[in-house]
């Protein structure tokens, strides 16, 4: 099909405008379409597209800790905002931690002296759950998970 305007080049832009039920078709070549200005002929680049989609995805997923810390802020400063950040972002942080700690991910050193206020029931169960998962004792883990849920519901 030839361009409606110059009648010389192959039409590549096909515009169909419907106004009050009246259908109006127009077929233009690239040059005439650009000159007419009616069509945004230039497609956004791949990078632009990706950038947009990244941004919107980030906006949707950006979770924040109660201290206000987000993962993108952490990536900028390298610092977390409070102890709770390690709970909220644990999944995302573990690869970072392992990389910076030579592949290690389990604390082996001393623990705070236990003269300090004892762990709460919930904290104790959470620790036990972590150990159970580590030891692949999934029956015990399931029991603990239920106990934790019950405690959390109470709290």
């Amino acid at each position, binding site marked *: 099909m030839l361009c409606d305007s110059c009648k010389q080049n192959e039409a590549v832009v096909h515009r169909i405008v419907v106004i009050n039920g009246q259908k109006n078709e127009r077929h233009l070549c690239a040059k005439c379409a650009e000159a007419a200005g009616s069509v945004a002929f230039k497609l956004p680049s791949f990078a632009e597209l990706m950038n947009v989609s990244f941004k919107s995805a980030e906006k949707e997923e950006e979770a924040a800790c109660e201290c206000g810390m987000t993962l993108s802020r952490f990536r900028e400063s390298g610092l977390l905002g409070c102890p709770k950040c390690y709970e909220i972002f644990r999944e995302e942080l573990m690869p970072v931690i392992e990389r910076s700690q*030579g592949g290690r991910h389990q*604390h082996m050193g001393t623990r705070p002296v236990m003269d*300090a206020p004892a762990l709460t029931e919930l904290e104790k169960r959470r620790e036990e759950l972590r150990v159970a998962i580590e030891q692949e004792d999934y029956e015990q883990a399931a029991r603990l998970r239920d106990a934790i849920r019950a405690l959390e519901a109470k709290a």
Partner: protein
Amino acid sequence: MISIQSDHIILSCRVRLARNLKDRPFVNSQSGEQAEAVLQDVNTLFPAEKGYRFLRMDALPPLSRSSLVENHLCSPELVACGQSGLILNEANTLSIMLNEEDHLRIQGILPGLDLPGAYALCREADETIAKDLPYAFDSQLGYLTACPTNLGTGMRASAMLHLAGLALTGQAEPLLSRISKLGVAVRGFYGEGSGAPGHIYQISNQYTLGMQEKELMEALSSIITQLAAQEARARGLLLTRRPLDLEDMIGRALGVCRYARKMGIKECMQELSAIKLGISLGLLPCPMERIDELIVACQGAQLSNTPLSEEEESTARANRLREALKDL
């Protein structure tokens, strides 16, 4: 082979524990009131009656703050923070930095290589605090710190080494880059980002998670001891193979220090490094402590009670060196 006193190579050692208080935001996210609470809560556990000194950074003039850094009592980062503080014991072997990157940075510093001794100092303070103020702790990740590179034990053990022999024989750089692959970090005289003036290097453990404190210290001690042995060997080689060059260099360094009228810090560290080398090899009759004290005494903030221009500073430094070394 010539014997070299090990403390002529391993100058000092340090253990640092990073801790944060439970249920409180880390330093970078806390409010002014919360920062104040950290200062007060910890300060009350280390009373003046027991010989502790408490210094508030915002109450100290800039020169006194720089002086603390030059004496290795706290980090340059601490003095840059607003609402931060420092607790020191009588002997200045224990220092607790408050509101640096973490709520607490407990440091033990001792001469030579005595990491268990420095750790014991830290641990005592650590337990004192933990009895009253619960720490942010996680059974998997250990002590929780603002930066994940300090997780687990929160422990950074280090030693300050004078590696002039290795540097002069061109072995320092390749050797240090090799050991940095063994989970060891190499830094300059004043920690992260500072150069290594006077061939003084700080060697510390890179990883803090997944090993016991004792293991970390033993692994580091073993690397440091081997490095010190290499340094002793390099010094011995210089003395037997290039005695004239060595004496020439040391003589020139002494000459510059005794007669110069202006001296920048970089040159000063370089000359004092050569003099230290000369003393350790028995070529100069002078107690080593005198030069070690002089190294600190020649840092910027030690030279005057009032801020100096660059020219005044280099003049004051040259005067101090002339005076200290006139009988050598």
